[in-house]
């Protein structure tokens, strides 16, 4: 067996398997790169840009960038974290994210990123868009106010559930999440609580009804440890410790 190829991330050698992206290899090696729309169980999407790194002096989304031997990647720099803070501020400004009364608070990836990246101010004037909730489904509530357009629900419903319940519609600033039914209502789809699409929303859009706030403060995912520590636990197992599901490589 030959030694795996490596690239440099913030000066540290990161081994990778053929087909892995920079973020996959980094997370597998225990190195955190902030991310939002990337999910280890789904193909890269590259839309949120939070995982942007500098490679040989140029910026790139690390979730879509194939790992290559000899790359020199910068991630943990003040310049990049400042850009990431701005991106998080823009995501907050674009929707209606009222953490104080949101049942996803403490379990929300966007909120956790805000804390981890030390976003201390709004930064931009908020849009306060008018986005009515869809409460038509007997078991599921959709609160579009919090959508960050990561398309994880779109991908999960399509690729795993085989239902295509969700899609994005509109362009540019008008882009928004829609429900694929004649009425546009979730009640007129076959979405169920057991769907993968129920699990993947990083923010508080897709919610099980009548379950909000059941978890006490202190027991929520990001109450005690930051997202940067926990994201590594979600990552595929490091090379050399068995089969890597995300990259479908095995030693």
């Amino acid at each position, binding site marked *: 067996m030959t030694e795996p190829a490596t690239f440099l991330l913030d000066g540290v050698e990161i081994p990778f398997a053929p087909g892995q992206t920079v973020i996959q290899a980094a997370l597998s090696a225990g190195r955190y790169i902030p991310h939002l729309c990337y999910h280890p169980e789904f193909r890269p999407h590259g839309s949120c840009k939070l995982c942007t790194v500098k490679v040989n002096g140029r910026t790139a989304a690390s979730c879509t960038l194939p790992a290559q031997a000899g790359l020199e990647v910068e991630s943990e720099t003040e310049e990049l974290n400042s850009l990431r803070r701005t991106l998080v501020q823009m995501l907050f400004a674009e929707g209606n994210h009222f953490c*104080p*009364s949101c049942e996803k608070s403490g379990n929300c990836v966007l909120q956790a990123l805000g804390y981890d990246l030390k976003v201390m101010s709004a930064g931009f004037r908020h849009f306060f868009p008018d986005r009515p909730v869809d409460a038509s489904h007997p078991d599921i509530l959709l609160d579009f106010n919090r959508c960050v357009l990561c398309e994880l629900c779109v991908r999960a419903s399509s690729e795993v559930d085989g239902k295509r319940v969700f899609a994005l519609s509109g362009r540019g600033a008008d882009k928004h999440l829609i429900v694929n039914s004649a009425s546009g209502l979730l009640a007129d789809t076959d979405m169920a609580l057991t769907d993968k699409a129920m699990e993947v929303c990083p923010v508080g859009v897709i919610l099980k009804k009548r*379950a*909000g*706030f*059941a978890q*006490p403060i202190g027991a929520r995912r990001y109450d005690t440890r930051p997202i940067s520590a926990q994201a590594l636990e979600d990552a595929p197992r490091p090379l050399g410790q068995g089969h890597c599901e995300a990259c479908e490589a095995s030693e």
Partner: protein
Amino acid sequence: MTETLRRVAIDPISRVEGHGKVTLLLDEAGIVQQARLHIVEFRGFEKFIQGRPYWEAPVMVQRLCGICPVSHHLAAAKAMDQIVGAKLTPTAEKLRRLMHYGQILQSHALHFFHLSAPDLLFGFGSDVARRNIVGVAAAYPEVARQGVLLRKFGQEVIRVTAGKRVHGTSAVPGGVNKNLSLAERDVLLKDIYQIVAWSRDAVHLARRLFEQDLEMHTAFGSFDAHTLNLVRADGAMDLYHGGLRARTMDGKTLFDHLDYDRYWEEIFEEVKSWSYMKFPYFRELGPETGWYRVGPLTRVTQCDFIPTPLADMERREFLAFDGGRAANATLAFHWARMIEMLHAAEAIKDLLHDDDLQGTELMAKGERQERGVGVIEAPRGTLIHHYKVDENDLITRCNLIVSTTHNNQSMNEAIRQVARQHLDGQELTEGLLNHIEVAVRAFDPCLSCATHALGQMPLQVELVDAAGTVLDERLRS
């Protein structure tokens, strides 16, 4: 008629929670005919909550206030208990009670020691630079220390029951999301006996201050008023749950043990153009004379007994004091407030010895309803939350009648009485401003709660004659 009255404005009131502005309407003889505590901030919570899922209400609506959010948290949760048709488990109800008594303790301690003690200890007209909690700490260090630690203990009770000291999340429709661990209980048990003792000392301090200048304290801004409060089925003071009791100023009972689901049959609300705060009144008496008083003074005087021994002993002494002269005295609010703080401390002590707090049956369910009403005795008085929820679980209607709103006209009346005693008709003196503020502050009004105030302004005072000419102007930052 009011066109011929002179207008005196005091803007805003300091050391109340929120922003208030007072106008005194004088007749041509310089006598105060009307006092208006203006509430000009906009409150939007009844609108914000429309279209939101019902389980969000207890967490969202508590953001009305940072001083007594537990009251809104619990009143909304009680309303949502009705929406989900749940009868609480003993563990859930006792945990909520513990949270509420913690809230009463910390809020009353804050009000007495931090906000009112400076007036009471130094005198209403004393140097404003010293008349604050820092001044109290310098002159009466032990009093200030106990006040700070009493409040801290109450906040700790809230933290372990609600999850956070301010704006916790544990009361959910049908129950609570956590119990009290033995470790959390033991931390509180360690201090509770000291807290009870200090609370009793605080009652005695409030009494001594009242006695020191008895004539002034009994006369200051005092008036007869109808009353509204919750009582337990046996007539005991119950700050968490009970039926509504309404009595007229001459002791006649208008209704008693009224199921609070039907509050709207007996309590109406009037809107006035000069205030965002509504004016509730008893239907039977009408809007002109049907206004009433809520809060500690009402609860202590109108309950049949307090179900903890030390507080009940103090209640009996309070009622018997000087032939009952304290019962209607605006400044006796402070004394009554400290009796309630003692009751809260005793109730916390009893609950900490109850094994139900470590129970694991936290949630209950029942038959879904479309309407829910939750009523609680908040630190400042009766608090009503009323919601309607549609078949998709979204709130379609919300009505909140908060303690300060119930006391709206009572505060105007107290101001009028004080102004009549202390306005010379020509000039706004610092002393007059202080006296009016002390009268308002006795009610511990939460103006941000009643209207959701934003920001603060310096104190601005102007004196305007019947023709609209500014005779005098004062600015106090």
